[in-house]
């Protein structure tokens, strides 16, 4: 027996919708759960019901001792912005050099920079810990910024290099003959044209620096602790304070949601721009 084409089409459509809903639920479900839990009273936490009396008590508690959500958010913001501000100019300069100059050893250098990322962080963390302890940088934001740069800069170099490679050298030569120094050429011509790539790198850097957990866990104790590590503070001897974790989770997620809302389009355009000159 065979189905009439119209029914078959409807069935296929229904299956599509079901599949999409399933995928959406898998991705969005936990986020919705966190947001809902953040506003629940502790006794409602395990009730999956969406009908509850919303409260801001969790946030009030989280900002207080022993969680210090405010200070930790500030740490996270400073570490993330510090990573961005230092990484992007360095990565842009390095990307330009790798793209335009010839080195003895050739392509080995940019590849070597990338290869450093194949070493797992767990291996690097012990020497890094020793170095920071010797330098007196343990439990400082600077230590985290430096640690973040160790993986943000190499990837950013590669992201930006692709864009600079696509800029025809004509324009730079024209600018040089127009009277610009090499540095001025980079600032006036290369940076504006590689901006989509630099923006992509910035977003990437923001996301990974903001979400970074492992280095922050090992290299900080109290003063420079970031949100992500602070989250663990909600695992107390009296059990896990899920509602506090959720409140912190909301603060962690918030910038990501904003970011995806406003810059996603730019990011995607940045990723494809190099390929469709």
């Amino acid at each position, binding site marked *: 027996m065979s189905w009439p084409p119209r029914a078959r089409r409807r069935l296929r459509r229904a299956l599509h919708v079901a599949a999409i809903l399933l995928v959406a639920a898998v991705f969005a479900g936990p986020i919705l759960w966190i947001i809902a839990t953040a506003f629940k009273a502790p006794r409602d936490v395990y009730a999956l019901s969406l009908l509850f009396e919303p409260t801001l008590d969790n946030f009030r508690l989280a900002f207080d001792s022993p969680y210090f959500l405010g200070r930790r958010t500030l740490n996270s913001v400073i570490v993330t912005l510090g990573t961005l501000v230092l990484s992007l100019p360095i990565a842009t300069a390095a990307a330009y050099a790798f793209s335009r100059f010839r080195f003895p050893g050739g392509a080995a250098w940019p590849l070597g920079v990338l290869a450093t990322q194949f070493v797992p962080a767990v291996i690097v963390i012990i020497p890094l810990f020793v170095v920071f302890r010797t330098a007196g940088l343990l439990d400082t934001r600077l230590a985290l910024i430096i640690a973040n740069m160790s993986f943000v800069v190499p990837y950013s170099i590669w992201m930006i290099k692709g864009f600079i490679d696509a800029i025809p050298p004509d324009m730079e030569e024209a600018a040089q003959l127009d009277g610009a120094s090499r540095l001025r050429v980079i600032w*006036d011509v290369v940076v504006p044209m590689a901006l989509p790539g630099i923006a992509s790198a910035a977003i990437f850097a923001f996301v990974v620096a903001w979400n970074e957990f492992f280095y922050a866990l090992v290299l900080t104790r109290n003063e420079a602790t970031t949100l992500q590590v602070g989250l663990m503070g909600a695992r107390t001897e009296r059990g896990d304070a899920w509602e506090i974790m959720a409140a912190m989770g909301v603060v962690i997620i918030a910038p990501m949601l904003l970011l995806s809302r406003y810059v996603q389009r730019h990011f995607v355009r940045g990723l494809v721009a190099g390929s469709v000159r």
Partner: protein
Amino acid sequence: MAQVRLSGVEKRFGGFTALHPLDLEVADGEFLVLLGPSGCGKTTTMRMIAGLEEPSAGEIRIGGRVVNDVLPKDRDVAMVFQNYGLYPHMTVAENIGYPLKVRGVGRSERERRVREAAEKVELGALLGRRPRELSGGQRQRVALARAIIRTPTVFLLDEPLSNLDAKLRVTMRAEIKHLQGELGVTTIYVTHDQIEAMTLAHRVAVMNAGRIMQLGTPEEIYDRPANLFVAGFIGSPPMNLIPGDVVGGLFRAEGVAARLPGAAFDRPGVVLGARPEDLAVTAPGAGDLEAEVYATELTGEAVLVTATLPGGARVIARTDRGWRAADGARVGLRLDRSRLHIFDRADGRRIPQSQEVETA
């Protein structure tokens, strides 16, 4: 304004010699064209003058100053690139004004001069646009305006017209010639288009395989090509070249016997050159050569007759636009004796003829 002088300038890329040691002097205010097929070293020569390439040996002087170690930005030269090299993120006005901005010229002064330069190349109405909103000809004008906004000592133009369509090329050619005459700036112009070279240049340097084959005025290059390369490269359709021998003042090849002007001489192993317009089509038996029509082409202002000589070689003659003949018809061809060229077959050099000995 300045003189440009290259002494023993050479360029090697690894084991490949792009430019053999070269001496060249461009006079103050001169329009010099570097002409040659692609890969002949003409662009490399220009890029070394601009400072975008470093010579492997030799010395480059601009206005008497050795500039080998001077950065491009400090050479005070302006260059127009084949792909225009415009800044896509800047408006036309910002593009044109960039050389002034880099030099710290104030905004109001800059705006005034941008407008002046734009007027000169008829871009006044487009100052707010971006390069991608312009046609090829307009982009080329922006590049020109950017080059003339500060009066540089030397203009370098690298195939500036090759991305334009044929009609626009003719207009822009005239504009470039006019601008150069008006500004009187020493200009070096690279092209592979002989018409551009002939029409624009005070002097042409014909280049091939990293060497200058001949340096001279357009007339000299056309009327007295120094060697077979120049003879074959300049002129469209190219010069007819017939290998043969000179015996007692008579040029002989298979089925060809033509008396040469001047005193009788013997010289085996030569090539006779005659431009299509110096070959007249006559009745059979009335010319110097006998030939059979292979094809006729009406170009509009003339008819090009391709004819086969008895030896099998083909020659092209340019004749009156009213001339008609069927393929296979027998015709005679008469050589214009005052405009014949003879080259040595072995080294390709021109053999000076008696009436031009004093100039050779």
